[in-house]
């Protein structure tokens, strides 16, 4: 049952991604393609170079190219740095894996620290578990405190 639910969720998420690849929009690609002169994404640049790249994307969308075909053409002309996200292969894969590894290591460190902390708190809890004071001892303590106040 769980497996079916997971498969349905995966399909539900994959469908828009596939549709986006087959029918990309300029707005979508503007956020994923860099302006090589200003080093920002196209949606943040109005430079002449950025305008030309936007016009090229519009032409390719009208010609029926998919998102990956347009990206491939841009990489052929400009090199891989034209894409805002590094490719998920070779050395560039590190850019994707390192943050995940960092998060995992961080989570492990926090978990270990929490475990250590709870262990050191146990003796305090043991102390708190001790019952009320002996009435004689309590009386003596009160007398001494009173004497101390005077």
């Amino acid at each position: 049952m769980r497996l079916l639910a997971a498969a349905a969720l995966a399909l539900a998420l994959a469908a828009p991604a596939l549709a986006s690849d087959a029918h990309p929009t300029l707005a979508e690609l503007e956020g994923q393609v860099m302006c090589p002169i200003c080093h920002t994404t196209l949606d943040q640049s109005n430079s002449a170079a950025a305008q030309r790249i936007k016009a090229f994307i519009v032409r390719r969308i009208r010609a029926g190219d998919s998102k990956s075909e347009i990206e491939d053409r841009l990489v052929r002309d400009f090199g891989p740095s034209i894409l805002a996200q590094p490719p998920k292969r070779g050395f560039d894969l590190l850019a994707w894996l390192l943050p995940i590894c960092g998060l995992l290591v961080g989570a492990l460190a926090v978990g270990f620290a929490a475990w250590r902390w709870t262990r050191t708190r146990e003796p305090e809890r043991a102390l708190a578990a001790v019952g009320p004071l002996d009435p004689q001892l309590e009386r003596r303590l009160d007398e001494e405190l009173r004497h101390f106040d005077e």
Partner: protein
Amino acid sequence: MPRLVKLGAQALAVAAVAGLFALLVWRVVHQNRNTVAVQVAHGKTGPAPAFNLPRLDGHGRVSLASLRGKAVIVNFWASWCAPCKREAPQLERSWKAHSGQGLVVLGIDANDVSGDARHFARKLGLTYPLVHAPTTIWDDWGVTGVPETFFVDRRGRLVDVHVAGPVLDGGNKAQFERGIRLALRS
């Protein structure tokens, strides 16, 4: 033992931060230090960086090594650059006037859609060799904008002249002519 582990972890964290800081300092210090533009500005006229780039028209490739024995004007341009449009006819005239003496004008189109660049060259009737390069060539040569022009002599060495901006404007014209003279003289 836990104290040792704690000290070890702290030392590791400090070492990691120091390492990243050292990397940042190294990157800042070495940034653009060895580009062609910086070398020429310091009067260092060593060998020009080798390249082998596809022709813009798609017919073969051009390498700098294949032009050894000729004086080469290396001109960086892009189709979206208005000053490049103004200076291209001058480059065409220089190429036609000096080709008999062994001068080649090589136009390197970069940071540009190659289809737009082909249209640009057709429209202006450019006949000198044009190649298309990936974005990284700007970093290798220290190009900060287009047009920019360098000169390589017959032995493949850089000439002590660098024209930033159109070769027609103001002092650039005199520098351009000096670059041609020095490159041809070698």
